């Protein structure tokens, strides 16, 4: 059947058109390779300079909030993987923590330690991915290859733990499903021992690289006021002079027991953000070394519990389910009907690699959340392009999008 062409009324699907005042409208995306996903930018240009930018999102909208209202709490966990799919355990964790706060659960220490390992590995994976793709956008192919090589090691470790490389679903409400595999700590140590030289390699390639500096320094400067007003968080906020890291300021899990620094800069430009990502990788490694020790202490103290004990909400360990009738009944009810958290509301924010990842849950006592709002940092980091891009030139667009580190699974949800 033939398409009736007139029925297709493209908005701006033609690439360019002139206007009376010689302003050019350039449609950037939604399939642009350096847009890091489905970002469409409508740029109003005077020569090569941008006078107005209009980011258009929604190309990856899957209605996760709607899905959440129609799923039991445990059922929603794999969906959170698809938000920030570069670091999916951090989304799992944010959701699990929100539900745990709603219920009032205390997670066993060993599970907390494993969660912290997963979170920091995810942070490293995300930052390495950021470095690789941004460097590739700027033209530094070598860094891309190196950073992806390192990310591959981490993905292997994660794969050994949960069987998945990208969408982990490795964290459960109330703890973690599994203990780490035997080779985990060894592999992680080998990786961490090598990481400082790797980071040094990237820095040697980039820090004094003329092209890199020209594309990064004094480009995409975000002032503190602008960052706060636009709801920026994570590295975007820290690069703009606010030393705000939720791991430090509102510690969750065992982050108050580990020592690490919060790198920040008052420059606010692309280069500041790049430096912060690099420093954060070092800090993550520092945290991981301490967490490995914490894990070994857990083993020594014979703390074996991995899931919280709360029969109303959390299934018993598998051994109990297979041997005890009551545990099996509980498990059956929890799987078929789902847990019913108390009536109330909670907003829990965690520091994902991209920024403040928040889960707002309104529970009416049923097995389905009445309202679940996902607060994804990238949403506002995309919005800020409206104010950030004007005044810049076309090549800057690519480097600015790169350093905002937006992931569209999370922007559109």
């Amino acid at each position, binding site marked *: *059947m033939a*398409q*009736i062409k007139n*029925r*297709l009324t493209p*908005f701006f699907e033609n690439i360019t058109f002139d206007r009376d005042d010689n302003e050019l409208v350039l449609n950037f995306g939604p399939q642009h390779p350096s847009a890091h996903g489905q970002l469409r930018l409508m740029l109003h240009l005077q020569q090569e300079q941008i006078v107005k930018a209009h980011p258009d*999102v*929604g190309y990856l*909208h899957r*209605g996760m*909030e*709607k*899905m959440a*209202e*129609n799923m039991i709490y445990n059922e929603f966990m794999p969906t959170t993987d698809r938000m920030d799919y570069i670091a999916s355990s951090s989304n799992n964790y944010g959701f699990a923590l929100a539900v745990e706060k*709603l219920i*009032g659960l205390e997670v066993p220490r060993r599970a907390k330690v494993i969660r912290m390992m997963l979170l920091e590995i995810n942070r490293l994976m995300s930052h390495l991915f950021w470095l690789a793709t941004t460097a590739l956008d700027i033209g530094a192919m070598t860094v891309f290859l190196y950073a992806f090589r390192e990310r591959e090691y981490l993905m292997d470790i994660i794969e050994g733990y949960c069987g998945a490389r990208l969408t982990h679903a490795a964290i459960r409400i109330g703890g973690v499903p599994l203990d780490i595999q035997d080779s985990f700590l060894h592999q992680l140590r080998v990786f961490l021992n090598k990481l400082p030289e790797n980071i040094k390699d990237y820095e040697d390639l980039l820090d004094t690289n003329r092209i890199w500096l020209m594309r990064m320094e004094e480009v995409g400067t975000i002032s503190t006021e*602008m960052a*706060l*007003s*636009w*709801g920026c*968080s994570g590295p975007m906020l820290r690069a703009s002079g*606010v030393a*705000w890291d939720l791991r430090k*300021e*509102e510690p969750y899990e065992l982050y108050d027991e580990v020592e690490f620094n919060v790198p920040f800069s008052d420059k606010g430009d692309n280069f500041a953000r790049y430096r912060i990502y690099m420093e954060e990788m070092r800090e993550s490694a520092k945290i991981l070394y301490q967490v490995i020790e914490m894990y070994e202490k857990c083993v020594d103290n014979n703390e074996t519990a991995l899931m919280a004990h709360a029969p109303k909400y959390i299934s018993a360990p598998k051994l109990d389910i297979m041997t005890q009738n009551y545990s099996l009944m509980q498990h059956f009810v929890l799987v078929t*009907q*789902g847990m*019913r*958290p*108390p*009536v*109330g*509301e*909670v*907003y*829990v*924010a965690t520091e994902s690699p991209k920024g*403040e990842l*928040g889960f*707002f849950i*309104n*529970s*009416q*006592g*049923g*097995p*389905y959340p*009445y*309202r679940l*709002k996902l*607060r994804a940092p990238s*949403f*506002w980091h995309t*919005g*800020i392009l409206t*104010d950030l891009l004007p005044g810049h030139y076309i090549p800057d667009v690519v480097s600015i999008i790169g350093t905002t580190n937006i992931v569209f699974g999370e922007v*559109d*949800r």
Partner: protein
Amino acid sequence: MRAYTPKDDVQAKAYYTDRFYVAPQVPKQDVADDAVFAADLEAISAKFEVKESFIQVGQMVVYINANDIYAVLELMRDELEYTQLTEMSAIDWLAKDNTFEIFYQMLSMNKRKRIRIKYFIENGQAVDSVEKLFRSADWSEREMFDMFGIEANNHPFMKRILMPYDWQGNPLLKTYPLEGDEFAAWYEVDKIYGKEARDIIGPELRDTARVDRYDSNRFARLGFEVPKGTEITDDMEKTVQSYQEDGGVFLITKLDKESSKVIDDPQR
């Protein structure tokens, strides 16, 4: 007697709830328990009517009047150091009492505190935009408009953000079914081919496990699978492919495929 279920909420419901089940409550603390929150609440209630306030899971919740929102957030930003509006959206209570509950999640970095400002509006009522105070509300209010149809007064660009511009319906309303309404089901067909093509094209196949075994375009040899390595060409003649350009290739004057020798061994 069967429990009453509101007809205008089509979201998933628990298929079984014990008749005597009383849902527990997430505990609420008094605002006076926390000195910082108490001072903040005092500053707000000195100028505006506060309908209800409590602390839940470490965060203060304050209910105010809908038309005070701009002034309250301005006060919080300028005087109470709540410098970030991290999140805002709505909760649909249309099935219950025809209202929306709007919440604004505020963050103070100096005090390390979070406050949730809330108010109710009637269905069809617009909210006041706080985009002038917090630029982040620009996109949040657009998202709220997109998802619930709640408009924000004085917003510079009140357009849909996640759904297409020409979408009908607001997906996060409780009356909107999870699998979409009729408009959603025929959106692409109507747009590209026209409504009259609905019968020809037919409805979208929603069964993800469905396999058409005679569809040889997508599922080659389905149902007629052969072991690996089986010759399936039945002595069909090989298509001779010649990539010679019309005018001949530079430097190659005459290429005779038949008589030329192909070197298989790369080591030679």
